[in-house]
């Protein structure tokens, strides 16, 4: 994990104070999250870049409406991202409709919402990436290898108790993050 990624607390504090550096910190911390959400929801790289730009510009302009009492900065940003993705999907639908009308007079009626599945998985990946190195390694093996926790301890030459506690705390952290980011603004 890059060392220059600021902590959520730092970003949140800077943002709350209206620190001019806050936007840069916000982007450093959440740029990949927002972009990945957009990329996975929209597919097209150029659209994902546009959405990412819109999200951070919106967040900056509306930063006074961020209320730490109502949820985390990450949750707030994910909510903005979802809205922007929806807007982009709606725009596309509109364009599609125009094209379809010209071609056959038909219209599609797909709802313009980013899938929860995509959001959850990207949020999860973000939180996983935020775990301390050793813990992240344990969680990755626990999730994606067939190794048991005893085998993980052996492979990593780490005490069994440490592995178990990494797994327990890591899982709880991921679960909390998923639930927190479901906060709707």
């Amino acid at each position, binding site marked *: 994990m890059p060392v220059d990624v600021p902590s959520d607390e730092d970003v949140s504090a800077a943002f709350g104070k209206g620190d001019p550096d806050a936007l840069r910190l916000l982007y450093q911390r959440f*740029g990949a999250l927002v*972009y990945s959400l957009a990329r996975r929801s929209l597919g097209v790289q150029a659209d994902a870049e546009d959405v990412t730009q819109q999200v951070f510009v919106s967040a900056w*302009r*509306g930063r006074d409406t961020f209320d730490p009492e109502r949820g985390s900065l990450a949750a707030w940003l994910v*909510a903005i991202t979802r809205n922007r993705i929806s807007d982009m999907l709606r725009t596309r639908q509109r364009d599609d409709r125009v094209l379809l009308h010209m071609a056959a007079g038909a219209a599609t009626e797909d709802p313009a919402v980013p899938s929860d599945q995509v959001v959850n998985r990207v949020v999860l990946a973000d939180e996983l990436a935020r775990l301390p190195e050793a813990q992240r390694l344990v969680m990755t093996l626990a999730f994606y290898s067939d190794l048991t926790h005893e085998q993980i301890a052996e492979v990593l030459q780490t005490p069994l108790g440490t592995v178990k506690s990494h797994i327990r705390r890591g899982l*709880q952290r*991921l*679960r909390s993050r998923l639930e927190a980011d479901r906060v709707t*603004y």
Partner: protein
Amino acid sequence: MSHTDPEFLALTALGEHAGTAQDAAHLAQCADCQLELERLTRTIELARRDGPVSLEQPPASVWERIAATVGAEEAGQLDAAPGNAVSPEAVRAAANGSGRDVPARVPAGVHAGASPGRAGGRRRRLGVAVAGLAAGLIIGIGGTAAVTQLTRPSASQVVAEIELRPLAQFPQWQSAAGTAVLREHQAALQLAVSVTAPSRSGFYEVWLLGQNGTSMISLGDLNAEHAGTFTLPAGVDLRFYSRIDVSLQPFNGSTQHSSTSVVRGSLPATETGAADPG
């Protein structure tokens, strides 16, 4: 009596055979532990589906666009005083004024244009002018026009009267002023603009500015009396193109905004649906 070892639940959720017979017995009859197990299991299923997800870093150009958009939110911010001339209170006040950009308050259907950064005619690379961020925001104060909202008469309806004001960071234009009257006329929207400003070399041009700070639509030039009436493009989304800007353009043949904004004002938020075709 305490619940089962939380590590037992975590390992069980991962699909391991862990814990003792007592743990299993407790789980079988404890709703709390079952619920916890279910939540952990859901998290794990999500993580395992389709294998690991890695986050993608956006290309560096995205940050440049963000910095440029926020920094160059207002034309000509390069001439503006650096951020240290801006009081935090002023920045906060400006940010308050633009709070409607937050998604919860954005009306359905508003979108920020297809390609704000790339399509915007004028795009500045500021190299992260964070000072410029604050300077850019300050304009909100001068630019948020006092809007006189009129009741709608029949015939050629006045939709809004907007006061145009000079921008804080252009001291040379502080004596400038203007008005814009938005009228609905035969199903079209017309904007009549007039400006009082010192005579300078060049001509005045009227623009609609998008909320992303980079998209803009040129409406046309003001005449020798610094006045002009323009028909807005049919279907233009005034919730997005919500600001009116008058620039001083040099006679250099460029069709782009000169970055010298003389006066500016904002359309009232409530009337913005007027241009919707449907």
